[in-house]
């Protein structure tokens, strides 16, 4: 491992160029309500296969970090979260902005997102190597149960519709069975088609679900109503979309160093909480930020101002959603389990570059792991440098017609799907996945579980069969190994837990009634 070589690789003009492009694209995606980091990473993924891995990953990580950060821009200026992760920024951000301090609010978003992001990366660096070393002890039974635990997170990503989420997850698992069976070498559901032997390519399905599907979903929302809604919103708020900065004369434009220092404990605690929340598969920046905001409200000196335009509260939420990225990346890199939809797509990207996330990545491709850490740091530094200017510029793009954005998404999705393998079949797969994704969201079915199932389906099956080949060759293999047993218990808890909590809540409500 040559550190000099790694640094020169991260700072090479090509890598920096792609990372900056990713940051700028991420700012645009994040600032536009309705576009998500997942969609951005999915539809721009094909662009990255044509460049060296560090440049491609720099671009994807740039989009991921920057979109999560920039989601706060529209949350602050319009009161509409740009991405789900910035939902908690709407609690205090618009009030600060409306009070004549939009520049200050944007500054808080930039600076604290970067601070949170860097704390998240620090936690990732500290935790990932020991976790990966520990995970090296894993055999097929442990991998089976880790993957099962990951699959059990279908419950967590399903929101209110748990049964629907699990149902959709199993549809994803069904898709993952197409192609050559991992252990017996039997061709399943290929119907003699050579193109299906390797199964469905993961990327076109993702692009279809999150690109075409979302664009179709936007069509179903009546444009006239949408335009009226935005105009009404503009009228209601002093800060408008078109001329969003209506600064009070002599308004404070940034926090003083003393003010920043005063928030140190809140930021540190919430960032660490968010790293843990982000590390749990199925959660994300939105949950991390809400949990952090609620926790800080309990112990902060400024607690009475939370929800009334507290600067500290805004700082906490901004730091939290970017810190959760460190947690999601830890689970993804060390165990190969996606923390959220974006990391699921990142797993696909890494696999395309022949880097399989998991403990072996840390022993076999240590250089790449360090490059990834370096790229994350670079992304945050670039957000700090470009953030304030970029957020002002990209927030003006909210005026762009939705039809243009949706058409761009569809076109990029179709051409991008083709570009991966020069295969028109993938274009059809993307199209069908998009239509299916649209119907799923219309029927109230979450699409997140499909991502988890597609990623983890093959992992569960191949490791399960390998486990059965180990002595004693029975199901007891999974119960006699301590790590495997603990994971089975955790899986059971995550599957049954929400139902039990729901029952307890219901019985309490009945008693109160």
């Amino acid at each position, binding site marked *: 491992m040559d550190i000099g070589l790694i640094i020169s690789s991260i700072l090479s003009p090509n890598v920096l160029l792609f990372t900056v492009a990713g940051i700028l694209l991420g700012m645009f995606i994040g600032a536009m309500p309705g576009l998500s980091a997942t969609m951005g990473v999915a539809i721009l993924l094909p662009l990255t296969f044509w460049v060296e891995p560090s440049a491609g990953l720099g671009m994807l990580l740039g989009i991921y970090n920057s979109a999560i950060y920039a989601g706060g821009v529209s949350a602050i200026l319009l009161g509409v979260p740009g991405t789900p992760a910035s939902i908690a920024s709407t609690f205090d951000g618009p009030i600060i902005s409306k009070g004549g301090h939009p520049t200050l609010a944007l500054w808080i978003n930039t600076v604290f997102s970067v601070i949170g992001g860097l704390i998240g990366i620090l936690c990732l660096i500290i935790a990932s190597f020991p976790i990966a070393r520990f995970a090296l002890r894993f055999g097929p039974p442990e991998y089976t149960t880790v993957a099962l635990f990951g699959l059990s997170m279908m419950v967590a990503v399903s929101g209110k519709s748990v049964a629907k989420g699990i149902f959709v997850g199993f549809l994803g698992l069904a898709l993952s069975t197409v192609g050559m069976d991992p252990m*017996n070498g039997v061709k399943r559901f290929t119907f003699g088609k050579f193109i299906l032997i390797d199964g469905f390519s993961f990327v076109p399905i993702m692009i279809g679900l999150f690109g075409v599907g979302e664009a179709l979903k936007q069509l179903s929302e009546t444009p006239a109503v949408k335009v009226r809604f935005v105009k009404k919103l503009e009228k209601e708020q002093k800060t408008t979309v078109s001329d969003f900065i209506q600064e009070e004369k002599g308004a404070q434009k940034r926090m003083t160093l003393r003010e920043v220092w005063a928030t140190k404990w809140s930021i540190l605690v919430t960032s660490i909480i968010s790293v843990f929340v982000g590390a749990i598969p199925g959660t994300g920046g939105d949950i991390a930020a809400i949990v952090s905001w609620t926790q800080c409200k309990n112990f902060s000196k400024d607690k009475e101002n939370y929800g009334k335009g507290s600067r500290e509260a805004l700082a906490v939420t901004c730091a939290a959603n970017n810190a959760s990225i460190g947690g999601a990346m830890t689970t993804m890199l060390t165990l190969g389990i996606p923390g959220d939809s974006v990391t699921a797509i990142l797993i696909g990207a890494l696999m395309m570059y022949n880097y399989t996330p998991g403990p072996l990545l840390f022993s076999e491709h240590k250089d790449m792991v360090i490059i990834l850490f370096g790229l994350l740091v670079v992304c945050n530094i670039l957000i700090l440098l470009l953030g304030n200017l970029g957020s002002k510029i990209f927030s003006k793009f909210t005026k762009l017609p939705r039809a243009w954005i949706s058409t761009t998404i569809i076109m990029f999705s179709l051409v991008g799907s083709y570009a991966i393998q020069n295969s028109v079949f993938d274009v059809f797969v993307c199209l069908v996945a998009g239509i299916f994704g649209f119907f799923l969201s219309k029927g109230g079915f979450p699409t997140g579980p499909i991502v988890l199932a597609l990623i983890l389906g093959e992992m569960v099956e191949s490791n399960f069969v390998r486990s059965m080949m180990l002595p004693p060759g029975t199901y007891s293999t999974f119960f006699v190994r301590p790590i495997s047993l603990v994971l089975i218990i955790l899986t059971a808890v995550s599957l049954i837990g929400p139902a039990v909590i729901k029952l307890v809540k219901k019985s309490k409500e009945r008693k109160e009634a």
Partner: protein
Amino acid sequence: MIEIIVNVLGIAIAAFLYIFSRDFSVSTRPGIPSAAFFPTIICVALLILGIYNLVKIIVFKKKHVDPASESIRITKLKVLQMLAIVSLMALYAVLWNYKIGHFILNSIICFTPICWLLGDEVEWWKSAIYIVGLTIFIYLLFGVGLKVRIW
């Protein structure tokens, strides 16, 4: 209605998995599960969940309305719009598959009406100009810059 269609589709997929996985239900190696093992588990789970969801929808049809599915109701006009968009996208893919026409020309022909159908807040000619610019940009990016063999 969409909920019912998706659940019925899931049950149909489960039946499909069950029927076709019988072709490879014999294990090629003694002592290890056959290639049909995993699809069979999925099939059973899909059946149970599909039926459960259907019963829930039918029994609680009036009592329970899913907030997610209720949020947006699709009008007949919207259905027609949607069908037109999907047909245009499918046409685009078919033309691509058989290498008929040219990428730039086909993109403009198919995506200008798609853009217009996706939202009418902009005049059609402005959207047409936008699509021409977008198509050329994508062609230059993928075809020239990344050397992807788009037709």
